[in-house]
């Protein structure tokens, strides 16, 4: 895969965006991405949305959101899994040779949505829903399973959580909250044992958009130099069952990671300069980090990850933006010196049923 990233934008994150409807959030973000790419909307031939009806609070949410996202009288398609899956589909559409210039956009305004009610209704009605399954309980089960599988102790998880928060405070694209202390994390309320409130990254509102270009378009428009190359994507899904192996083994995380590196043409010893992880809790972060232990990774989540901002449905795209900025050398205070190859990670589904990776490379001048 050889796709140029020629523009991107994010809506300023907030705990709650109260001065705009979703349509306005989408419009502002799409408009900013087109401006960043220095192209007009009429030049687009493909728009891919990543949006979830239930989190958007409407059936067929794209009815209202497609046009403000730039898709008016365009070939538009939508996925409902996550923003990262939209990036994957958009990239394949360009790689098919049918499209040359694509916008991919995703958003999250769950400050006005009862997220756990949505998550509870994601549970099938025969077993999981009657026992009260929701995202927090699924994450608690995950935390317990990976804790046993990887020998994670509570203090180490708290330390990692604080470290990520400290990094997030330095990220100018995030909310720059003051980090908690180890003691505060350890003393916070238990949400679903062993998961504590202090382990859970707060969900924020936000939106992200990218403009992708085919090699053919870039060759015909040499004035548009891509800020990064999307080299590969890989995504996989695990079983819906929340048994101990499914929760603790992280099979799909490992499989998708290996696959994206193989598709990027990288060997086991080739360095990964940056990987930005979507870790909804400190336990996720610790488990993913353990899984990366045998890989030559220079920096894990230098942006602070979900502690910088966590627009739930499109957090993976926040990571994609950070990865693009890293290989472009534009990450500012969170820049990893000399970063040439960066991975963005996203996940979705109960207890991270699915994992998505995008591999970005520096575009040499």
């Amino acid at each position, binding site marked *: *895969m050889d796709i140029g990233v020629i523009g991107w934008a994010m809506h300023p994150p907030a705990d709650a965006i109260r001065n705009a409807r979703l349509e306005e959030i989408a419009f502002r973000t799409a408009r900013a991405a087109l401006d960043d790419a220095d192209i007009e909307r009429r030049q687009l031939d493909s*728009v891919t949305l990543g949006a979830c*009806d*239930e989190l958007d*609070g*409407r*059936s*067929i949410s*794209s*009815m*209202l959101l*497609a*046009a403000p996202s730039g*898709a*008016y*009288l*365009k*070939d*538009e*398609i*939508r*996925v*409902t*899994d996550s923003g990262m*899956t939209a990036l*994957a*589909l958009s*990239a*394949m*559409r360009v*790689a*098919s*040779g*049918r499209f040359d210039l694509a916008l991919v956009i995703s958003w999250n305004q769950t400050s006005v949505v009862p997220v756990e009610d*949505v998550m509870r*209704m*994601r*549970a*099938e*009605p*025969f077993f999981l829903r009657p026992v009260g399954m929701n995202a927090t309980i699924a994450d608690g089960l995950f935390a317990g399973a990976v804790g046993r599988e990887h020998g994670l102790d509570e203090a180490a998880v708290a330390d990692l959580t604080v470290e990520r928060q400290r990094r997030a405070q330095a990220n100018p694209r995030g909310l720059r909250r003051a980090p908690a202390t180890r003691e505060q994390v350890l003393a916070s309320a238990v949400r679903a044992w062993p998961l504590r409130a202090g382990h859970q990254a707060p969900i924020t509102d936000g939106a992200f958009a990218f403009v992708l270009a085919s090699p053919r378009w870039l060759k015909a428009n040499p004035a548009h130099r891509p800020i990064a190359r999307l080299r590969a994507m*890989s*995504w*996989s*899904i*695990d*079983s*819906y*069952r929340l048994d101990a192996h499914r929760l603790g083994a992280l*099979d*799909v995380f490992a*499989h998708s990671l290996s696959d994206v590196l193989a598709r990027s043409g990288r060997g086991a010893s080739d360095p990964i300069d940056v990987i930005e992880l979507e870790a909804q809790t400190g336990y996720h972060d610790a488990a993913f980090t353990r899984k990366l232990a045998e890989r030559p990774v220079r920096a894990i989540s230098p942006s602070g990850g979900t502690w910088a901002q966590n627009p739930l449905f499109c957090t993976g795209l926040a990571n994609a933006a950070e990865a693009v900025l890293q290989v472009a050398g534009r990450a500012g205070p969170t820049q990893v010196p000399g970063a040439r190859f960066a991975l963005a990670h996203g996940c979705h*589904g*109960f207890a991270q*049923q*699915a994992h998505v990776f995008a591999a970005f490379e520096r575009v040499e001048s």
Partner: protein
Amino acid sequence: MSQGVAVVGIGQTGFRARFDELTYPELAQQAAMRALQDARLSPDDVDAVVFSMAPTQFMGVNDCDKWSVDFVWARNKPFMRVHTGGATGGSALHAAWAHVASGQYRRVLVVGADRLTETPDAQFILNLIWDPFYEQDFALNTVTMTALSTQRYMARYGVTEEQYARVVVRARRNALNNPNAHLKGEITVDDVMRSRRVSWPYKLYDICPRSAGAAALVLADEASARELCPRPAFVTGLGAISNTVFQGDRAVPSSDAEFADHAELAIAARECYQQAGITKPAGEIQVAELYDPFSSFQFPHLESLGFCERGTAARLSDEGAFDMNGLVSVGPSGGTLCTNPIGVTGLVRVADAALQVMGRAGDMQVRGVRNALATAAGGSAQFHTCTLLSDEPRGRVHS
């Protein structure tokens, strides 16, 4: 680099009001299993899965696609759900095509299921697709919405309720040849005209049923397709379009795509035909499987698809031009008017079009099919997809 893509396996459950003996994922599994068997593949032969499902509120589980993962053998594979309202099945097919055409995957299963009667009245759910501040209180649903565009079309072209009734009669008769169809039978124009008034000009028989069922297709790259299937159905053209949600904006003189004509569909069709090298649809396309949940959809759609001039489809319909083996055989399966499991209807349209190209449509088979068109429509009739299936990989998509 684009690589050729073909349909090599098709699976459908029958469609009916309810499947009380199967859970949702079991229903999806039935179609997936049949498609894999049809393609003579095992689940391990499939590289990726695309799931086709529209609003989940119809059946009450938000992540019904994730619930289905183990049942459609998607575990440890790339998996995504596509949802563009009624156009979902067409869009899911396009997404699956992109998986293969991009060269990223060789064999992709696209599967979905829907069960609209899990909710007491689908139209209450469909009221929720509109803006909560401006439109939901107007009692808009898909029936009242399309009744408005139908009234406008009738006023522009002088079409009568009886002419729409003849469309219903033809669809129910064609459906007699389709073992999977939900509604079928010999009815008369008078039967349609006497059925209960719902929203003028619609009577009950002008409106599709609420169906349950599942559909699946296996797509493969050209080399695999030729190995697996003696006569694959090649995807030679794709087009899709997304218009504004606001119907009023489409019903003014400055509109880019006239509301009554469903004119945005013409843009998608043009793109689809350009890829396939189609210049005279009426002579080159033998079958059209249309997304026509209402009797009034066929006329503007056939005109937007270039089979006839604006305002002429009703007269041609009366003359039999859209009957089996007519100018173009429209809905040999009985179409959406007889079967509408919304989340997979677009897939069913592609499946029935592909069967025609493969020469495997049974009693529905039209003579000498080289090209068959499948459409899907969704939202406020704002989303449209066109997919052309052909007996050979001709056209620009395959160049």
